[in-house]
């Protein structure tokens, strides 16, 4: 297979998305570096293709999460006001940011993701918040626990802080073509204090709408190349399904350590490429 050909794109997207699926994260963080460093595809084309793959993966995984009753759809629609506003800001900014700055920003996000992958997510103990408009408990909900077959109630706190972090996640998502889990996870776990299962499912449910806000702009400005984005989207859906199946049979902790090293290595390569050094040369 020739790097950049449709079947090469399909194969690497299956691989990248399967890795993402095994780690419970979106594949954009792997797809953009692979396309730019090894496929010699321009970073803006890679970001456009990755946005479509993020939408495809989010839509493909959402039905099973919704059937399990995990995403908080009432909270999601409110947080999506912030993420879509951030994504629209991001796509408008993208045209003014030089390629080198995008590569450096991507490097920082990859290193943060690698660090986050190694650290364990901790459940923050909910604190009873004082009264006020945002403490009216209108977003409080419950999720089903398959072990006890009971509903576990939870509270949603500090919504304005969560929304501010979500705005930042939207900007990064549109700028880099990724799901921005690196910002969404702390926003949901630490700011909103959601249970981990609910936070992962709600984040996954929201990623598609956030990416669509950036992708619709990119589609109309013809930044999205159908010959690249099509195979990447299809491969991402197939890879996510494969990754979810493999996840049930392996120890995710060892895998996290291994892929955090891979991600850190890709980050170094991307940083070197930003300055015209290293073993790879980037397309314009």
């Amino acid at each position, binding site marked *: 297979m020739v790097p950049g050909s449709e079947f090469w794109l399909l194969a690497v997207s299956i691989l990248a998305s399967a890795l993402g699926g095994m780690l419970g994260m979106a594949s954009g963080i792997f797809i953009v570096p692979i396309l730019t460093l090894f496929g010699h595809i321009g970073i803006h084309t890679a970001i456009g293709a990755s946005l479509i793959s993020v939408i495809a993966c989010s839509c493909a995984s959402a039905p099973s999460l*919704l059937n*399990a*009753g995990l995403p908080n759809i009432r909270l999601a*629609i409110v947080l999506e006001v912030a993420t879509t506003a951030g994504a629209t800001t991001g796509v408008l900014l993208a045209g003014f940011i030089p390629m080198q700055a995008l590569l450096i920003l991507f490097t920082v996000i990859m290193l943060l993701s690698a660090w986050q992958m190694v650290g364990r997510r901790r459940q923050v103990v909910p604190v009873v918040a004082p009264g006020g408009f945002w403490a009216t408990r209108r977003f409080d909900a419950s999720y089903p626990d398959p072990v006890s077959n009971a509903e576990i109630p939870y509270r949603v706190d500090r919504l304005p802080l969560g929304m501010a972090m979500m705005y930042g996640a939207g900007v990064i998502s549109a700028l880099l073509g990724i799901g921005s889990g690196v910002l969404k996870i702390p926003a949901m776990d630490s700011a909103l204090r959601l249970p981990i299962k609910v936070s992962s499912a709600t984040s996954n449910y929201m990623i598609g709408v956030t990416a669509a806000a950036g992708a619709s*702009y990119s589609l109309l*400005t013809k930044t999205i190349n159908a010959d690249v984005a*099509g195979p990447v989207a299809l491969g991402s859906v197939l890879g996510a399904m494969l990754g979810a199946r493999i996840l049930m049979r392996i120890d995710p902790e060892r895998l996290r350590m291994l892929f955090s090293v891979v991600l850190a290595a890709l980050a170094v390569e991307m940083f070197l490429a930003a300055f015209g050094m290293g073993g790879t040369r980037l397309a314009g």
Partner: protein
Amino acid sequence: MTVRATHPRRDEQILGWLLAAGTSVGCALIALGLLAGPVGSTGGNVLHNSLGRVGIGVFVLLPTARVILMLVLFLRKREYLLAAAAWVVFVIIALGCFFGALS
């Protein structure tokens, strides 16, 4: 405090159905486009290009359709704050399209 599980709820089922159907249609169109490519004829190339683009269009429109469906579901339940949030999300996406069409 725990109560008996009642999932999946009706709204979640409807949203899940929309996303599953849209994903299947988008993937099928892109896959058919990829298969039409190696045919090599002019017709095969036209099919290859147009099916791929329509498939991508389906994926871009699908989350927006989900937002519109949520707007309808919240209006039916008279949850006006959440319906307003869905409307704002829709307007922001439409604004992005407007800026994209302008540039």
